[in-house]
């Protein structure tokens, strides 16, 4: 574990990024989750305002406002999940606009947990996007509601979705079979 020059409170020490690994400001991911929560709420509003049943053609389904916005949110999740949370645009926004107005972070955290959460967000929203493109009714709305709960609870209550579902996925054989990550 990295040793800081000024000792941190014990509860914070444990969250330090591993030595030799750049850490993240822990407030960044919660800020990003707040933006996501608002955006998926807009998706839900647009989906409710749109037609109850999906339009006949793929083209018409792909140009619904709710679909376009959810596809964009899904792409942003993919960015966070595959490029890492540190390269996520909301993280840059946080760095440019929010962080200068806040006190410097007391500590930096390991980026792995929020990166995993981005992956979960991607899977949920991508499933919604693909299934609604195929023409399955209501999936866009359902995916957006799931994403809203996860993002809202993460942002407001510091709820850790990865903590709740990772082990269930390991037990289901979806994750954790490979060799131990370094």
């Amino acid at each position, binding site marked *: 574990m990295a040793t800081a020059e000024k000792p941190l409170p*014990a*509860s*914070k*020490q*444990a*969250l330090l990024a591993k030595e030799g690994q750049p850490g993240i400001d*822990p407030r960044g991911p919660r800020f990003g989750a707040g933006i996501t929560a608002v955006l998926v*709420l807009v998706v*839900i*509003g647009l989906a*409710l*305002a749109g037609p109850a049943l999906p339009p006949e053609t793929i083209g018409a389904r792909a140009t619904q406002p709710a679909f376009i916005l959810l596809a964009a949110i899904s792409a942003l999740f993919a960015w966070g999940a595959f490029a890492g949370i540190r390269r996520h645009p909301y993280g840059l926004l946080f760095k440019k606009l929010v962080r200068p107005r806040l006190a410097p972070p007391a500590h930096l*955290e*390991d980026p*792995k*947990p*929020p990166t*995993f*959460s981005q992956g979960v967000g991607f899977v949920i929203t991508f499933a919604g996007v693909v299934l609604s493109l195929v023409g399955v009714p209501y999936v866009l709305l359902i995916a957006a*509601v799931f994403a*809203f*709960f996860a993002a*809202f*609870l993460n942002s*407001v*209550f510091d*709820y*850790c979705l*990865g*903590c*709740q579902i*990772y*082990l*269930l996925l*390991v*037990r289901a*054989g979806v994750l*954790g*079979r*490979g*060799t*131990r*990550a370094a």
Partner: protein
Amino acid sequence: MNAVAILGILVGLVAVATVVGVLWQRSNGHVREIDDASTVISVGELNADAVAGRGATLLQFSTEVCAPCRTTHQLLGDLATELNGVAHVDVDVSHRPDLANRYNLLQSPTTFILDGSGVVRARIGGAPRPAEVRAELDRILAAA
């Protein structure tokens, strides 16, 4: 659907999510005592370096994607250092579905409090509440 109804649904969603968040925060991290003494764990089998405490062992199961696991590690480690005869063992189950199934682990961190004989006396889901862990350890150490 008209604008007022949509707005009502959105406000309702935020309200429901807030209630869920408050309930989660309230229920998370409590010590749940286990009355039947049927589960005995030898920590050396889980982790070759692990040594059980004479009086009690705080057995923590963690995953690598879990930020509260780190704070929990620190909290329980400090308790073990402070209290005589108490040991802390942290097992990473990110790649151990066998252990997750054997002990029915649903979330990380999950912490078992074992007595001096390795019997599981209590179970905690989520980041433990320090006062409750202390109280449980006092109970176990007093009974020993």
